[in-house]
């Protein structure tokens, strides 16, 4: 891929002070807002997790009332998913997609800013629900009725409405991204020449537009059941609490891939750079991503194997779930094959990416274990599930985000980050992560249930280890903050392309990327 013209001029000037941020119509500024928002939510939800781990350091009740423990697990989940991981990926989409496809901005810059600023009232409602009488929602992030219908707290309504607002934000944002990708690519950038990160976001945006409205429907039914006398989830009125689980997970499973497909895109960008080879099997990566996305709509009930379903349904969902391992396996194979005989170097982004391939694969395999119906009936709602989805979501999504931050920091700030500190951050995070979550496989297999503030004595050692790991993991992220802030403030000047093997239009603009780029689209050959 090469560019024939790339003109950059910074003559428009741009607003300064607070107006630059609240009234922004610039994809880079809005991307920055998203990324910082996501980081603060990550730290906040992480602090909630440390509350959970502190309580579980020893058997017995130490700090938290059981009700408050449940509130912490609920908010930790909701905020990490909707406040940390998803906005981080949208932040990358904002910053990088226009640069990668050679266009000046997203298709609808004002709507883009609206998508961001809707996150703020949602966050206020979610976090504020802690402080209202009755307290925050305590029924888990999945909000299953009857608990979520019977809990009289206003905090539950605030969380439901917060999720409605986040849904609007996600749908508007996804329409924006999908339109940008379909309509605003530089001349010559055919679909099959797009960087893989753009492809994964195209498919993710489709998943969001298809699944978020279904969540809105589920939340609406929950709200009317709570306050307007409907009986959707009440068997006495002819409804069914399990109905909520079906509707919720029809959204929920695509949601899981919404949080992992962009991560696949990120590491598919990073690994070729540091292996100094083109991505192995580009086309198969695209097809695998699409296959994963389509399959995500027909696997939802594997989250509910123990809640009542005909055996034929259970078998269907077991086999369809297992099918997903095929396109996912294609991806893992391609990443490894990309590295095969490459001239590899191990800068921080590469370390994170390799760790993601390795650790995400562990999470994928434990997912395959959980897909097996008779096994899942044993393991449902144990710490094995907690271990599984943290290997997928932390070492899959969150660590790929961290790696990608290091990868593009030079482009964003114009400075190189401190490689030594970056590597420290990587090793501390990876080791602490494994100390935290690997023992959960054992406690889960031994039968320790999740979402309970106390546990039997035989689980004490593993829980103590997990808690120590969790605090190390949390504190390590302060180092991340330090490295990023230090890089923003200064550091060695970064070249337009600071990575020897990096390809793509984003590296043809100067570092830091000027306020406006590609106002005249480049031609891609």
């Amino acid at each position, binding site marked *: 891929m090469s560019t024939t013209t790339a003109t950059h001029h910074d003559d*428009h000037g741009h*607003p300064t002070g607070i107006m630059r941020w*609240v*009234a*922004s*119509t610039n994809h880079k500024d809005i991307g920055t807002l998203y990324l910082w928002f996501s980081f603060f939510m990550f730290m906040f939800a992480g602090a909630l997790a440390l509350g959970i781990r502190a309580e579980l350091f020893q058997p017995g009740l130490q700090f938290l009332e059981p009700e408050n423990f449940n509130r912490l697990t609920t908010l930790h989940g909701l905020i990490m998913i909707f406040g940390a991981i998803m906005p981080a990926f949208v932040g990358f989409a904002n910053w990088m997609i226009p640069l990668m496809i050679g*266009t*000046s901005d997203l*298709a*609808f*810059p*004002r709507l883009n*800013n*609206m998508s*961001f*600023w*809707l996150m*703020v*009232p949602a966050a206020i*409602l979610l976090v504020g629900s802690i402080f209202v009488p009755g307290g925050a929602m305590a029924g888990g992030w999945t909000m299953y009725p009857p608990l979520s219908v019977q809990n009289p707290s*206003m905090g539950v*309504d*605030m969380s439901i*409405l917060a999720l*409605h607002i986040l849904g*609007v934000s996600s*749908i508007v944002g996804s329409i924006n991204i*999908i*339109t940008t990708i*379909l*309509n*605003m690519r530089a001349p010559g950038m055919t679909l099959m020449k797009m960087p893989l990160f753009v492809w994964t976001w195209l498919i993710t945006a489709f998943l969001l*537009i*298809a699944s*978020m*409205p*279904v969540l809105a*429907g*589920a939340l609406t*039914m929950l*709200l*009317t059941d709570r*306050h307007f*006398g*409907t*009986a*959707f989830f*009440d*068997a*006495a*009125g*002819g*409804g*069914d609490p*399990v*109905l909520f689980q*079906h*509707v919720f997970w*029809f959204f929920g499973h695509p949601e899981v891939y919404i949080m992992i497909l962009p991560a696949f895109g990120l590491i598919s960008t990073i690994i070729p750079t540091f292996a100094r080879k083109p991505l192995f099997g580009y086309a198969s990566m695209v097809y695998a991503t699409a296959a994963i996305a389509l399959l995500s709509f027909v696997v939802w009930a594997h989250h509910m194997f123990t809640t009542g379903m005909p055996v034929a349904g259970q078998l269907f969902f077991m086999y369809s779930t297992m099918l997903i391992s095929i396109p996912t396996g294609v991806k893992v194979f391609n990443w490894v094959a990309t590295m095969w005989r490459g001239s590899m170097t191990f800068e921080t982004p590469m370390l994170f990416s390799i760790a993601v391939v390795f650790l995400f694969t562990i999470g994928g395999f434990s997912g395959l274990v959980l897909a097996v119906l008779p096994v899942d009936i044993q393991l449902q709602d144990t710490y094995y599930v907690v271990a599984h989805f943290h290997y997928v979501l932390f070492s899959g999504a969150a660590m790929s985000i961290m790696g990608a931050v290091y990868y593009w920091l030079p482009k964003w700030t114009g400075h190189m980050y401190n490689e030594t500190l970056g590597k420290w951050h990587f090793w501390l995070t990876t080791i602490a992560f494994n100390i935290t979550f690997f023992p959960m496989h054992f406690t889960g297999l031994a039968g320790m249930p999740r979402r309970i503030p106390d546990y039997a004595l035989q689980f004490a050692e593993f829980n103590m280890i997990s808690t120590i790991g969790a605090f190390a993991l949390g504190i390590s992220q302060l180092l991340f903050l330090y490295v990023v802030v230090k890089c923003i403030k200064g550091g060695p000047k970064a070249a337009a392309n600071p990575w020897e093997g990096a390809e793509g239009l984003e590296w043809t603009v100067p570092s830091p990327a000027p306020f406006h780029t590609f*106002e005249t689209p480049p031609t891609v050959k």
Partner: protein
Amino acid sequence: MSQNTNNYYLPAPSLWPLIASIALFLMAGGFAMQMNDIASGNYVLLAGILVFVYLLYGWFKEVIKESISGFYNKQVDTSFRWGMGWFIFSEVMFFAGFFGALFYIRTFALDWISKSTLVWPNFVATWPTSGPAATEALEAMGPWGLPAINTLILLVSGATLTYAHWGLMKENRKQIIIGLALTIALGSIFLYLQAHEYAEAAFTMDSGIYGSTFYLFTGFHGLHVAMGTIMLAIILFRILKGHFSAHNHFGFEAVAWYWHFVDVVWLFLFVFVYWL
């Protein structure tokens, strides 16, 4: 900001997104308070709605001004088309979720409740039903009275809208205005009849699962018809102001797409909520 028609239009910094965020915050916060019997909730909700109406007015006014000033080139027009198309797809999924729920209830849930003989031994799964714990017989809404008339009304409104569109293509002002006015009138009659049906109904939202699905489905659909009718009225107003030409009228087309979508949803409602 200087514009030239070859480049994609980049709007100047705008406060509308922040106002949108304030509007939704007030609406959500006020609604949460109102549902929990906090008296001031109504005022907060009302304030939110007012800010929201102001937002729609102001933001669309700005976009229409930009459109008339010729800032939008062909590529921007294509973006609007993709954007509206995907928005309607999201709406389709919203209703699909509800219809999926209805299907699940009717096919599985009621059958299972009738088979669990311990709690409600006498319950037999039928449709419509207000559930095993209901004490009164349910008088459901039949399809062949008002609902059938409403179906006819919406189908005809689709035709009158297309008649208006043909007028627009020919730049026949009279035809556009007649077509649009008829469509708006039909939409309004539909809403009136729907309200009448609600007033006459022998059951309410808390009449078990039938009342729940009936009011939520028809309610959300009615809300969409109301939105569509307002949008059509705005388009008529813009026609009177001479905003559209035979070649440049995506605002009209977007509303027409939306109207046809609402139409199709009604057909599903008619079959699965009223009829079968």
